[in-house]
């Protein structure tokens, strides 16, 4: 046979299902079930009647029960959250719109400011650049909670309280994004720039027509992580908004849980499912960017 003898002695040609491997798979499968069970419970409960929730019936549908999946829980949850009479729409739609507006405006803001700054740090020759970069890096050490109180007071002073400005602008400068993009930009060969300059392109032209298209993975990563963080944010919107119509989904969900949803668990679960779904889909579609970004930057958490 072609396989050298010593190789054969140390490792079998292909791994067999030894008892140890069976144990590993068993642990991983049990772990995965533990990981998924809360999601499964959420999805199942959101489709139950109030009666089956009370009686703790795990599977009230065919073939074990006679109920039909209560898809109506979803519109019912939306109705129960309340009505915004000034906008003539359900409050729930305001929450969704607010979350989408806040998350996408924050993403756009972070990307714009960070791409410009990162480019200067990576490629341009500007006096004081290194000092400014160190200054920016130092802000990583400022924990968010330390500046929470003064930032809330600033929102009052600026008259931004209860507006979209308070929910987006303070998050548009991101040290992580600048650092991450700078690292990425520095990897792009300099020859490309020299070639572009010969063709008569300035810095901005070069940045937008060459650097940005080449840095798509890095920009996607930053965009996704910022979106998730904004979507998840709860403490800040709770502090700087007052009106129900200015709430984001996370705040709306918590308020609903304190009220109507506290007793109607199936409606609360329907609400939670609507909050969770977009992020899970986004994650599953773009996993590669996510995992890489989180490993390299440690953002979120």
């Amino acid at each position, binding site marked *: 046979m072609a396989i050298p003898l010593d190789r054969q002695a*140390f490792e079998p040609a292909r*791994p067999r299902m030894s008892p140890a*491997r069976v144990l*590993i798979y068993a642990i*991983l499968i049990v*772990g995965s079930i533990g*990981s998924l069970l*809360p*999601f499964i419970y*959420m999805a199942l409960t959101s489709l139950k009647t109030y009666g089956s*929730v*009370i009686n703790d019936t*795990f599977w009230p549908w065919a073939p074990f029960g006679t109920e039909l999946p209560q898809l109506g829980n979803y519109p019912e949850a939306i109705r129960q959250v309340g009505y915004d009479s000034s906008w003539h729409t359900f409050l729930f739609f305001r929450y969704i719109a607010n979350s989408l507006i806040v998350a996408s405006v924050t993403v756009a803001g972070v990307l714009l400011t*960070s791409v*410009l*700054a990162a*480019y200067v740090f990576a490629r341009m*020759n*500007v006096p004081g650049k290194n000092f*400014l970069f160190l200054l*920016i890096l130092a802000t990583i050490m*400022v*924990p968010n*909670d*330390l*500046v929470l*109180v*003064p930032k809330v*007071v*600033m929102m*009052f002073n600026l008259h931004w309280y209860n507006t979209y400005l308070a929910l987006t602008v*303070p998050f*548009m*400068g991101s*040290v992580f994004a*600048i650092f991450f993009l700078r690292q990425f930009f520095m990897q792009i060969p300099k020859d490309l720039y020299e070639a572009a300059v010969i063709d008569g392109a300035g*810095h901005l032209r070069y940045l937008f027509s060459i650097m940005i298209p080449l840095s798509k993975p890095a920009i996607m990563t930053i965009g996704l992580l910022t979106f*998730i963080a904004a*979507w*998840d944010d*709860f*403490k800040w919107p709770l*502090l700087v908004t007052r009106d129900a119509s200015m709430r984001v989904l*996370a705040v709306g969900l*918590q308020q609903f*849980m304190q009220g109507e*949803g506290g007793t109607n*668990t199936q409606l*609360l*679960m329907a609400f*939670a499912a609507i909050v*969770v779904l977009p*992020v899970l889909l986004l*994650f599953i579609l773009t996993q590669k960017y*996510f*995992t890489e970004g989180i*490993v390299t930057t*440690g953002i*979120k*958490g």
Partner: protein
Amino acid sequence: MVQQTETMARTHVPVVKARQRRVQEIALGYAMLAPALLLLVVFEFYPIFYGLYISLCNWRLGCNSFVGAANFTRALHDPEMWHSLWITTVYALLSVPLQLGLGLFLAYLLFQKIRYKPFFRTVFFLPYVTSSVASAAVWSYLYSPDRGPLNALLGALGFQPRNWLGEPLGIFTLIAQSLGLTLPSWAGGPSLALVSIVIYTTWVFVGYAITIFLAGLGTIPPELYDAAKVDGASGWVQFRYVTLPLLSPTTFFLLIFTVIGTFKAFNHIYVMTQGGPYNETTTASIFIFRQLFESNRYGYSAALSFILFFCILLLTIFQNRVVGRRVNYD
């Protein structure tokens, strides 16, 4: 030579042009830096000093009266503040080892030649990317004392139902009670409410630890394992003498990151218990938030933030000194 003299003869115009271009480049550079710098200075640097000013004030819409260090001395004499720091410490001591231990264990299993590895990775990671308010709401339902699935499971196994997030008694007290014993109150252990939150936290963050550990495991050269195998090292010996030391920088990073994370923890605790029962889950960040949000004590909560920051700083320095020394960077 001929070329050089030619260029020297024509330098006058290009020098002016070059200087102009240089000035333009610098101006452009600063203009491109301006938005990010402005935002970071206004919302990261300036608030530190503004916060210090607020903490020295009796603040009602503005600095009503300058009270010096009064907010700080009041905090140091506030038993609730010390209690919240204690709860934070217990929370960290319970959840950090659980997250890191379980994370390393599962990452090590996944690192073996496993089929469907991406599937497992994704599944373990899902709780971490999920909106924390939504998942905490779901867990509140799992823990629900009257019709929660966890109590239904306990009932099916013949155990008595528990109050979970509403239970201020310590877990050792509860175990002793069910055995018909009584424990002195100091031996009661962390409240079941806090332990329930720790379980949730582990569920969320284990996927993050796994991801980081897997990245760390990938950097260990496989030849080292081969060499150990040739020397006849068993699986455990390989893990203890090859994996653990070479993984120590990753573990150290995760340790710092996770400890800071437990000190920042807010969303899930606020959603699940709002700090109750009897303040048994009021961590420092919950305490500060309630002083601000429910009692409108701006000066006091600003002072508390500085005290908490100081504690985290001390802890990080301590970890760097004591644990950092044992990290193997070769």
